[in-house]
């Protein structure tokens, strides 16, 4: 199995703050890799570095063998890497379907409008938004917007999907539904790198876990290994609830 | 060479007033992320205020306090009319709303006074050094700018209200959470910005003649100043103003006046593209 994403010695400095420090990890094809860490560990920054929102201060990012370090976001998207945002970014005045059509038109396949419509519809149905295709995105509930974020990314038919806290703010029913959707995404052959705070979800979904603390790699391994890693537990002791979850669920 | 030096010094004097005007814009921009396109019209209003007050016998510099107060009131009113609903909306909307108010004001101005040149008739004894005399009005304007800027600092850094203005500028939601009445603060900030514009107009009118349409040029200069000094930064505005004044001082002996504005605009666009945070941020980041 080859690495879909290879991040090497990635670093990002903001003024005096080292947000990400010499981080290296890979994401293997068809796996679900979980990226966890206490608040402020730098997880979203890693995503921003990977998809080109900021250029790294140091290090490289390789996507399917090609060097995409510092490449502009739209080019990264065109290469087949889609991402969702922690704070949802719907195209508010456009409908759900139109949002997805944008994803389909400008994603990896670069589809013309006609074909994009079909792909977009399929993606919206996949996440469960078929009743809302003509609703303006701004009118959706937070759960709806999160699903739209996901549908839009899927419509681009990516090889790698970056999910940034896609479960945050959802109630337990919605979480269960989303987890099912994520599993089905993987079944379609899409590799997933996900940031999540909901421990039981990410532990059960991920094949492997990468733990970040203060911008640095703390541990990697299977969910079991990571949950029992003393260094990880110590990092989370600052957040006792999470530490409990870590130990409790595994 | 000494002529150039004199020109530069004079440029610095006038530039300080540009800085004052720019403080008006940068305050509003920094606090509520809105560009006040009525700025030019407010500068002209300050100019007219001087003209009429002097006309009824008020000593020139005594016009400043009423302009400050009335400017504040007008600014607060403007905030409620055109700006309040625009806070947080796409920038296009607030641009257009302040632009619309500007149209109304300048339209009224040209309807009433056409493009006639107004000149406030008075002068002060100048300061002579060798062959060169620095106009007293310029010196006085620079001095008063320093006073007003000083008062602004005292307000922003030493009073409770001032601190709440800075808090809202830093993070509106957080300020709201700690109990600061953000809407009132925003209206106050806008009022202050307009008052500063008016006062700078009054000072400019003590130095130069003006027309209803003069506001455009000074508004442009204010934008150039902010871009030089950094947006949302009152100190930067002053420094930027001095820098612009310096530039004008360097240019006037050699370049016809009609070109100065073009050069300033090119400068504006170039600096905006090259250093979005303003030149001062460049200087700052070099130190860290």
């Amino acid at each position, binding site marked *: 199995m080859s690495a879909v994403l290879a991040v090497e010695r990635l670093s990002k400095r903001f003024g005096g703050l080292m947000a990400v420090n010499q981080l290296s990890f890979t994401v293997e094809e068809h796996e679900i890799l979980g990226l966890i860490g206490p608040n402020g560990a730098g997880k979203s920054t890693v995503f921003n570095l990977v998809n080109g929102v900021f250029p790294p201060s140091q290090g490289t990012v390789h996507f399917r063998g090609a060097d995409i370090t510092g490449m502009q976001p739209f*080019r990264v998207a065109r290469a087949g890497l889609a991402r969702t945002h922690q704070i949802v*970014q719907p195209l508010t005045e456009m409908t759900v379907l139109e949002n997805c059509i944008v994803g389909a038109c400008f994603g990896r396949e670069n589809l013309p409008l006609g074909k994009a419509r079909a792909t977009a519809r399929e993606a919206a149905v996949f996440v469960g938004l078929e009743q809302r295709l003509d609703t303006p995105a701004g009118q959706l509930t937070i759960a709806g917007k999160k699903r739209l974020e996901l549908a839009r990314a899927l419509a681009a038919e990516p090889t790698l999907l970056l999910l940034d806290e896609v479960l945050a703010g959802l109630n337990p029913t919605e979480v269960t539904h989303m987890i099912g959707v994520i599993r089905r995404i993987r079944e379609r052959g899409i590799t997933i790198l996900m940031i999540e705070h909901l421990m039981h979800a990410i532990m059960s979904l991920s094949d492997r876990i990468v733990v970040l603390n203060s911008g640095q790699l703390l541990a990697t391994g299977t969910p079991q290994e990571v949950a029992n890693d003393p260094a990880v537990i110590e990092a989370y002791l600052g957040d006792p609830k999470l530490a409990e979850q870590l130990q409790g669920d595994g | 060479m000494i002529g150039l030096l004199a020109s530069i010094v004079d440029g610095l004097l006038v530039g300080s007033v540009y800085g004052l005007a720019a403080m008006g814009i940068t305050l509003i921009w920094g606090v509520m992320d809105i560009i006040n396109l009525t700025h030019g019209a407010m500068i002209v209003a300050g100019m007219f205020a001087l003209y009429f007050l002097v006309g009824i016998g008020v000593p020139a510099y005594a016009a400043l306090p009423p302009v400050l107060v009335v400017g504040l009131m007008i600014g607060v009113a403007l905030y409620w009319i055109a700006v309040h609903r625009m806070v947080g909306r796409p920038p*296009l909307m607030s641009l257009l709303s302040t632009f619309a108010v500007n*149209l*109304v004001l300048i339209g009224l101005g040209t309807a009433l006074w056409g493009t006639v040149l107004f000149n406030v008739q008075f002068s002060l004894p100048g300061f002579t050094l060798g062959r060169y005399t620095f106009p007293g009005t310029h010196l006085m304007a620079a001095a008063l700018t320093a006073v007003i800027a000083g008062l602004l600092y005292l307000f922003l850094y030493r009073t409770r209200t001032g601190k709440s203005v800075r808090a809202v500028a830093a993070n509106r939601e957080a300020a709201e959470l700690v109990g600061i009445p953000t809407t009132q603060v925003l209206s106050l900030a806008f009022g202050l910005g307009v008052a500063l514009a008016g006062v700078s107009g009054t000072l400019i009118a003590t130095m130069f003649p003006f027309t209803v349409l003069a506001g455009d040029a000074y508004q442009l200069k204010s934008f150039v100043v902010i871009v030089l000094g950094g947006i949302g930064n009152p100190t930067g505005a002053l420094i930027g103003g001095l820098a612009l004044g310096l530039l004008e001082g360097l240019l006037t002996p050699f370049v016809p006046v009609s*070109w100065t504005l073009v050069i300033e605009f090119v400068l504006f666009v170039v600096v905006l*593209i090259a250093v979005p945070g303003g030149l001062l941020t460049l200087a700052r980041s070099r130190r860290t």
Partner: protein
Amino acid sequence: MIFRRPFFWIIGLVMLVFAVAPLLGNDVQLRESLLLAAVYIILASNLNIMLGYTGYVNFGCIVFFGLGGYFCVYLMGTLGWGLAIAAIAGGFAVSFLAFLFGLGILRLRGAYFALATIGVNEGVQAFVSNFDPWGGSTGIYLSTELFQPLGGPARALWVIYYLLVAVMGISLYLSYFIKVSKFGLGLLAIGQNEDAAAVLGVPTPRYKALAYCASAFLPAVAGGLYFFKGAFIQPTDAFDLQFSTEAIVIAMLGGQGTVFGPALGAYLYEELRGWLLTSETFSNFQLVIAGALLLVIVLFAPGGLMGWLYGRWPRLRKILE
């Protein structure tokens, strides 16, 4: 197919009205006011490509009109070119210049971009005022001989009118085709959330540049025709910001982001202006009314007239654009 969509035919109808109305009774006055309306529609629709789709306000859009005018007048007066070719060449020249300006200012966001466009207009005006081959601040006068190839001055005015109506039609169709195309979708996405659009793969720098150039071409051609008609061009007329402003008001009044909005807005604005100019008290207050109108629209009806119509009758969305 495109021909099935009603709007395609609605534009055609508008053009027909413009073409036929002044012919009835050989009404020269009507023709002149329709000509002005056509110019407003051209300016507003093309402005809309940036304003309504990407959300970028081009305060100085008049610069395209003025420069197009200068190129055309110069090519005809000094180099002896024919009208059509000079106007079109002007269109290309100005689009190219727009591309160059765009390289610089399109990197700026929102408000900065808007201010920079004023700068471009003022800068170009100052430059042209000092540019002797183009007559400096006095401008260029054209000899009436140039109307001869068109059949003499009276007939030439009709020819120019129809050419402008054609340009107006093309502007409306261009605006329409962009809106229903993939390019247009990308522009609309940029207007909603530029960063999100980029992350979705919309090639934002290239699309903005294309939109900017596209929005320059037809106003430039129109400028050429307009100033040739007057046989005279000078910097203060060519780069009059008031014209730009009115185009913005019209686009907002009619409904930014719609194709029909600028046409509707131009019609309403023209009516309003006509009424104002005849009224003694109000003729000086043109700008004031325009400003007040804009303020009301921005505060209470940012979608303009079309926005209001769509809100009231959502079915209209399927017919009009």
